[in-house]
Every structure is written in structure tokens, then in C-alpha cells.
């Protein structure tokens, strides 16, 4: 695991964005060679705060992605399990997920894999925990009765199949979950802990999120920042890709 500790939310976000950019550029995507970016699922389609609106406003409208290359789980599909199975097939067809980017809940869940979710689960319909419903209430005018109680989600196993996983954790309220995820054992009550068994995980967090970690852990990883920063500097661009590709290799491995 690489644990990247930045000072605050903006710096953590910026580091993560640069890392993802470099990964995409160095991968050298092109016709027939897709960089498959995995993201956790969210709210139902029809709601104005829907995941589709969220993704459009925060990501898709700012980049030149082709709509055919966007696959979002459809919570309104007639046969939900078939929709989930088809999603797994689409991932396989795209060559597998190159990089999965997600956050964790205060209860340590990744995507909607709530405590107790199998660590080898696949994409499926999941009942949401009360914690998650409360957290989502802000999207429904604080009215708990309006918050959906089920969601389609990628499974822990689905994410483990990705070639690389990046988890973003910011804020003091996530500190305990981060502690459970990386300093305690692998446990299905804290599903993010499953990534201790993944060969390529990057945790990006801010100072507040480290509040429950051992000082020793924090000092160790902060000491590695000089090396970790080589992953985001220099910042590559697609135009320079031709020149850099011959020189691109990871500065070090886990």
C-alpha cells in the first residue's frame, strides 16, 4: 500500500487528480486501447441529484469522453440482477478495470459494500445501512423517507479485480475507518480492509483523516512523500506522450 498524506482536502484532491492523470497518460490510451476507470455507484437515476447529474456536472462535461464509453449501473432497470450481471460482463469486455477510484464511508465501506458484505462479492443489489441513509439524506432535503434504501453496487471482489485501487479519505469523521482499514486486520465489517490483500493500492488522505493512526505509521509514510511525489511530478500530457513513453516506468514498486 502507498499511504499519501496531504495537509488538507484541496491538496489531497489535487494530488489524486494529478496521479490519475499521469496514470492515464502513461497508459497511452487510444482506439481499441481503453483506460477503464472504475468509480463507485450512487443515487437513483430520476432524482435531480442523481448520480448521472453528479457525474455529468463534475466530470463528463469537462472532458471529451464519448458517451458510448460511459457505463453507469441503471437503478431503474426492469431486472436488477440481470443489470448487475451485465455490468460485470461489460467490465470484462473492456479488458478489466485499470484503476478504481473510490472513497470510504465512516463505517469503512467501499462503494455500497456495507459492514458484513462478503469480501468476494460481485456487482449486486444491496440494502443500505442506516448510516449511509442518514449520510445521503442531504440529497433529499433531509427527508429520510425519500432516501432510497437499496442501491446497485460493485462488489468488493469486483474492485479487487481492478489492476490498481485508489481510495480517497478526508476528514476527521473518516479517521477511525482509515485506522480499521490499514492498521487492523482484514475484516468484512470494515470492507475497505480487503485491499490489504491487493497488490496495488494507494490511499490518499488529509491530516484530519490520520487522527486515529499510530504516530509511527504517519511518520513512516510522510517520510516517503519525497518518493511518492515523483508519481505526480512531472505532470505528463497526452501531447508529450510520444517522447515520455520510452522513459516511463514507475519510480519504485510497493
Amino acid at each position: 500500500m502507498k499511504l499519501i498524506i496531504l495537509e488538507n482536502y484541496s491538496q489531497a484532491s489535487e494530488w489524486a487528480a494529478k496521479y490519475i492523470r499521469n496514470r492515464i497518460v502513461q497508459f497511452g490510451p487510444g482506439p481499441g486501447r481503453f483506460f477503464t476507470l472504475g468509480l463507485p455507484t450512487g443515487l437513483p437515476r430520476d432524482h435531480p441529484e442523481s448520480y448521472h447529474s453528479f457525474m455529468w456536472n463534475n466530470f463528463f462535461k469537462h472532458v471529451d469522453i464519448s458517451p458510448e464509453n460511459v457505463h453507469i449501473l441503471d437503478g431503474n432497470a426492469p431486472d436488477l440482477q440481470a443489470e448487475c450481471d451485465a455490468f460485470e460482463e461489460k467490465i470484462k469486455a473492456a479488458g478489466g478495470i485499470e484503476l478504481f477510484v473510490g472513497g470510504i464511508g465512516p463505517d469503512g465501506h467501499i462503494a455500497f459494500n456495507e459492514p458484513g458484505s462478503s469480501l468476494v462479492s460481485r456487482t449486486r443489489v444491496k440494502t443500505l445501512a442506516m448510516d449511509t441513509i442518514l449520510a445521503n439524506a442531504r440529497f433529499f432535503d433531509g427527508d429520510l423517507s425519500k432516501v432510497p434504501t437499496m442501491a446497485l453496487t460493485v462488489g468488493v471482489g469486483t474492485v479487487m479485480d481492478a489492476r490498481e485501487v485508489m481510495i480517497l479519505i478526508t476528514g476527521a469523521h473518516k479517521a477511525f475507518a482509515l485506522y480499521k482499514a490499514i492498521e487492523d486486520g482484514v475484516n468484512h465489517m470494515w470492507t475497505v480492509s480487503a485491499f490489504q490483500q491487493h497488490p496495488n493500492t494507494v490511499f490518499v488522505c488529509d491530516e484530519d483523516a490520520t487522527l486515529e493512526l499510530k504516530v509511527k505509521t504517519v511518520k513512516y509514510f510522510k517520510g516517503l512523500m519525497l518518493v511518492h511525489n515523483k508519481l505526480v511530478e512531472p505532470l505528463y500530457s497526452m501531447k508529450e506522450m510520444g517522447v515520455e513513453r520510452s522513459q516511463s516506468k514507475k519510480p519504485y514498486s510497493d
Partner: protein
Amino acid sequence: MPSNKSVSDAPIVQFTNCRILRDHRLQREDLWVREGKILNPEKLFFDEKGSADVQLDCKDSIIAPGFIDVQINGGFGVDFSLATDDFKLGIDLVSQKILSHGVTSFCPTLVTSPPSVYHQVLPQISVRNGGAHGAGILGAHLEGPFISKEKKGAHPEHCLRTFEAGAFQDLLAIYGTLDCVQIVTLAPEMRRSSEVIQELTKRGICVSLGHSVANLSQAEEAVQHGATFITHLFNAMLPFHHRDPGIVGLLTSDKIPAGRRVFYGMISDGIHTNPAALRIAHRAHPKGLVLVTDAMAGMGLAPGRHTLGQQVVEIDGLNTYIAGTKTLSGSVATMDTCVRHFQEATGCSVETALEAASLHPAQLLGIEHRKGTLKYDSDADFLMLNESLYVQATYIAGEEVWRQDVSGM
């Protein structure tokens, strides 16, 4: 990028690198247009899996809805109140020229005239969409002849009329037809005005109060019967008095029916209203302010003498007077100058200034679902403006119909 659209094959244009006026704010967003309407890019992306065919870089311009002028008597030598043989050519000329002022829709206005003029001219005005040929015509604005003698302003006294005998039938007889009429300005203190106002409102015609000596109660009664507009506030009406505010008092009246808003036209050319008065009106009732030019035939021409209906007027700089008098008569202001002057005089935001010339007139005429905004599915009539609110380009139904010459005027 190839697009795969399931709804329509028409080309999709994406205007990028711009700030658009939407939801009362200037936002850094792209504007998408298809088949003459503003397109929702999110629906296009997810439902149709479509993308833009053409992307245009707007070089950080401001994109605002096209201006709507609801009071313009003519311009460039053309007088809408003169029944000439080439009247149609005249209206076409004006509608084409005002594109450079940012006006994409307008109401050709007729001042008080003899019935023969109305009978000859009105059938030649038709509601039509704008385009490369010129701004769209929303309908005629008939200012008079049912107005007050004391406040006739530049209108010819011998043509003034009343409707106390036959109310609405009298009005219809004078005008001949109401087919293409969008607004009628009248003085509400005239006998039987309530019936007339009700009848006009029933037919979807906007009734405006102006050229009147009405007191506040008479004005309020007119609003209760359906009047929704005030013609050039302050001009040609009794001045504000603290014990009887007159028509001006409508701006803060508490007798306006619920759910209705009274709009008021202001000629913000710096001449017709002192900037301090403009500020008072704006601060009292900002959401009702509608910028109008009240431009007459001399607009766009050199100083000198021109006609305004049955009168001769004289232009001297920005001032236009009845020849030989000091009575103001129409203006030579252009809509974009009015917008800039309004913004400077009141210190209001750019958004407010732009909305006073686009959203508010559209709301007045009840057409804001398709004009006056950049909402999805509304008509793609818009302007590209620079930081100082000078019009750089005018678009109607998504097509560029005018562009500022790079070399200058």
C-alpha cells in the same frame, strides 16, 4: 467526434469558453444548440449518447438572451406610424438593423394616429420569427389614441379619442383589427376603461398605462382589471406625490392581485429620466423594470429633422424634441446603449442589467418559456457580449445573424 443521436440528425453546436446568463447568474458553462433551441447536454449525453458536431470557442464572451424591445416607433428613417407604400420594406429594414443593437425580438410601436393609418398599417404587420432577415416581430404596440389630452406628450391632439360611447367596440373600430396587436397603452382614468381593459386582457393583449393623469386608485383599479405594464415610467404621467403617488405608486402598491407583477418601461438613455429617478424606481421594484428604447425614425441617422407620425421632430445629439419646442418625443437610443447606461447609473450587476432587457420583457408578454432566457428548450436567440456589454455577435434560432466587424463599426 462522431455522434449517434436517436432523437434528431440536426447538427449540434457547442459554444465553449464563455460565461452564460442562466438562473440569474453568469456561469462558466457551455451553451448547446440544436434545431434553433437550447439543448440539454446532459440528456443528450445519457439518453441519446450524442455529442457536439461543431465546437465554437467564444473567447471568454458573455452569452446573454437576445434583447426584446417592446417600445420602438421606428428608426433609420422609418416611421411605423406613417402609412407609406413601402411600409413592409421599412419594417424589414428596422428589424434587420436592430440586430446590431442586440435586439432579437421587438414590438413595432404606433403612436396616436388617425384611424386611416391604423387600417392601412396594422394589416401589414404580422407576427413572425426572426432570422438572418432581422429581429422577430412579437406583435404591434399601440400607444394611443385613447390617452389623456394633458399628457399627450408628442402625440397629435386632433387624433386623440375616447371610448365612452361604445367602449371596446369603439376601440376596435378605430384600430380596425387586433390580430397582430401585443400591447395597448391607454389612460385608465378615461370612462369605461375597465371594460376595455378586461376585454383586451381576455384576448391576450397586454394593457399598459401611460400618457395619463390617473391617480393611484384609478391605476390600481386598472391593474385589478388586467393591466400589467406602465409605459415609460415618469414620462407623460403625474409626478410622484407623497399623498397621491399616481401611476408611479404602482411600483410599491399593495393592491396588486396575488401572483401578478406590474412591469414598467424605462427609457434609460440618460435624457428621459434623471439617473437618480432611475435608481429610485429600480430600487423600489427591481423585478419589474423593463428597458425600452422608445426609439423613433431618427435613431441611427444624423441630427436634424425627422417625422414621428403626424409630427415633425428635431434631433440634437441624444435629445429629440417636437420641432420648435422642448417637448421630448421618443429617443434615438439603441437598446445596447440603454443596457450599458442602466448598469452604470444604478451600479447593478451585469446579470440584472441584461435581464431588464431580456427576461423581464419576456415575462411581461408571458413568453418566458421560449424567449428571454437560456433555459433548455427555449428559442436559441442570444448575444455574445464583451466585458463592457458591447454586442459582438447576435444569434437567432442558433444561427449567427450579425457579427461586429473586427475592423470597427
